[in-house]
């Protein structure tokens, strides 16, 4: 049976609530189901103390969840849009991420912050951003960004059981995506990426919704005789460089794709590491695909013009292969 991303997240949360009494959900509107319906029905099933609405107070609820995590709870906090995580930043950066370190290992923060990112459907400049790069810069945080419903199911459960502060970034464009869930499958470990499609000519490194764009691009490239390998990073911290290295050592070419703005993005970090660690393997410069340096616009024509898609990936791969400018997608 096929499930949407939202249904699968709900199931993972439902099962973790049932499995561990320390797990508590909190956030704005979560008892009412949340802005996207992810938590619908869970308060009725698990009680209003386990699934709890909060005021619109991101600073306080992030601190509350962190303090509770220090004292035996395993909160799953929903920050409705990653854009609003700006209001949680003091706590996430100065407290949550650093507690284990500053205390010399006395304390841990087993907290999952579920949030939702990315552009779709005219959500405009303050409800569409991809801000993951800010978080990968902070030692102590784990950053997870699933690419499919089934991936999200396993990764969310692994994140809740990890015992570290995890930022779990869901892409709103994936929420309606449907997928079969393999029952009883082993949970994916945090920190291990996966090969979403095997190939031999070029490595395309992506995460979150951009993995779907990369798979579309790989199909188009295959039709043109180019074999692209697609890596789904799954987690941005820790970054699974071993899988990237194995792939690039085989293909000798790499493209990194994300929806976040290119400047100072995750791609810059990965490109630098490939440059430093795999320079001798490279047959071409490492390229990046990302959003242009502008806020996400409102009008559909403008939103489409700014967001990177599979056509941009195909163009970038052709450039890497030395086939640039022969076709316009």
């Amino acid at each position, binding site marked *: 049976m096929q499930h949407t991303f939202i249904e699968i997240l709900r199931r993972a949360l439902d099962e973790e609530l049932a499995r561990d009494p320390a797990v508590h959900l909190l956030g704005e509107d979560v008892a009412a189901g949340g802005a996207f319906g992810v938590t619908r029905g869970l308060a009725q099933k698990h009680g209003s103390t386990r699934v709890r609405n909060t005021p619109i107070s991101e600073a306080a609820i992030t601190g509350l969840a962190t303090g509770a995590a220090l004292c035996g709870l395993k909160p799953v906090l929903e920050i409705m849009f990653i854009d609003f995580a700006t209001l949680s930043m003091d706590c996430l950066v100065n407290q949550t991420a650093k507690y284990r370190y*500053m205390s010399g290992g006395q304390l841990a923060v087993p907290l999952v912050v579920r949030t939702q990112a990315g552009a779709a459907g005219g959500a405009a400049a303050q409800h569409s951003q991809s801000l993951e790069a800010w978080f990968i810069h902070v030692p102590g945080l784990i950053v997870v960004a699933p690419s499919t419903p089934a991936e999200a199911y396993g990764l969310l459960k692994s994140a809740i059981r990890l015992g570290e502060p995890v930022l779990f970034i869901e892409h709103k464009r994936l929420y309606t995506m449907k997928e079969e869930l393999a029952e009883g499958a082993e949970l994916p470990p945090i920190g291990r990426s996966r090969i979403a499609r095997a190939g031999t000519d070029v490595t395309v490194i992506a995460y979150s919704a951009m993995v779907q764009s990369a798979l579309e691009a790989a199909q188009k490239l295959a039709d043109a005789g180019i074999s692209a390998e697609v890596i789904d990073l799954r987690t941005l911290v820790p970054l*699974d460089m071993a899988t990237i290295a194995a792939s690039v050592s085989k293909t000798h070419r790499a493209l990194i794709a994300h929806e976040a703005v290119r400047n100072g993005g995750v791609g810059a970090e990965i490109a630098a590491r490939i440059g430093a660690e795999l320079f001798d393997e490279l047959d071409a410069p490492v390229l990046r695909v990302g959003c242009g340096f502008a806020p996400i616009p409102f009008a559909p024509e403008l939103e489409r013009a700014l967001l990177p898609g599979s056509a941009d990936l195909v163009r970038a791969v052709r450039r890497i292969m030395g086939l640039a400018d022969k076709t316009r997608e």
Partner: protein
Amino acid sequence: MTEPTLADWKAMYAALWRIRLFEGQVQRLAAAGEIPGFPHLSTGQEAVAVGICMQLAREDVLFTSHRGHGHVLAKGSDIEATFAEILGRQNGLCRGRGGSMHLVDAANGVLGATGVVAGNLALAAGAAWAAQAQGRQNISVVFFGDGATGAGAFHETLNLAALWRLPVLFVCENNGYAEFTSREEHSNVKQVSSFAAPYGIATQTIDGNDLPTVFAAARGAIEALRRGAGPYLLECMTFRMAGHYVGDAQQYRSKEELAAVHEKCPIERLKRYLVERGVNQEELDAIGDRTRNEVLRAVERALAAPRPDPATVLECVYRAPVFAAIPG
């Protein structure tokens, strides 16, 4: 806690001295370049720490601020390990990773000092929520200065704590200064306790330099918290005898204001209280001397403690050994 006996008051007198002398050593060694960073002293504010923390159980949790040495000591943390942390030594409370502004002694319920003003309030509310959710009777106490009331997190946390009836004691040490700026210059709201009423939080403003007053007010508040009456905001009017940090010349304070030091000193005031109850000067001096020896010995041992091994610098970022193999 029942009415304190004379022996209890003497123990609290020693506790005041312990903090005063400990911070005197911090000041001395910071000036001598032995202490990294810029420690903040609570000299003059010790009665708040002692009057409240001495009434907490080990399982009650404490969150404090950048001016937190006194609270940590009053909660009963080891003097040597606390001082060693301020020195940045390997056997300090946090293995030299936290320092003066980030003291944590989890086994003793000290869940952390934070250097971001108002950053600790919601953490304390979270700890109280955990106690409530797990059906424990423990309370959570958070210390902050009047400067914290300018932060949104203060108001957000008060609202949430009242709404969820969390067992958290908010203790404002109102020393009249937000760092170098007087209360008059940073808020029209004279008393911090005024912020409690709109949220329906019980509150009181007290003389924070008078230990018996602090003790009595805290006892009432703590009893109410344990009964499940919801949060309490205790505003303790106090007097920062030192600068904002060690080395602050305090040119923003008048000579007249600083001349009040002796009259406001919580140690002098408790001394008068004890003398009135028949304790003789020799006994009080003996308590002072004993405490001085205790602190000096602990500081000496802390100074002799090993420095952390630079090779361990990446330890404790994540749980070992899960992510040891995968940097970043």
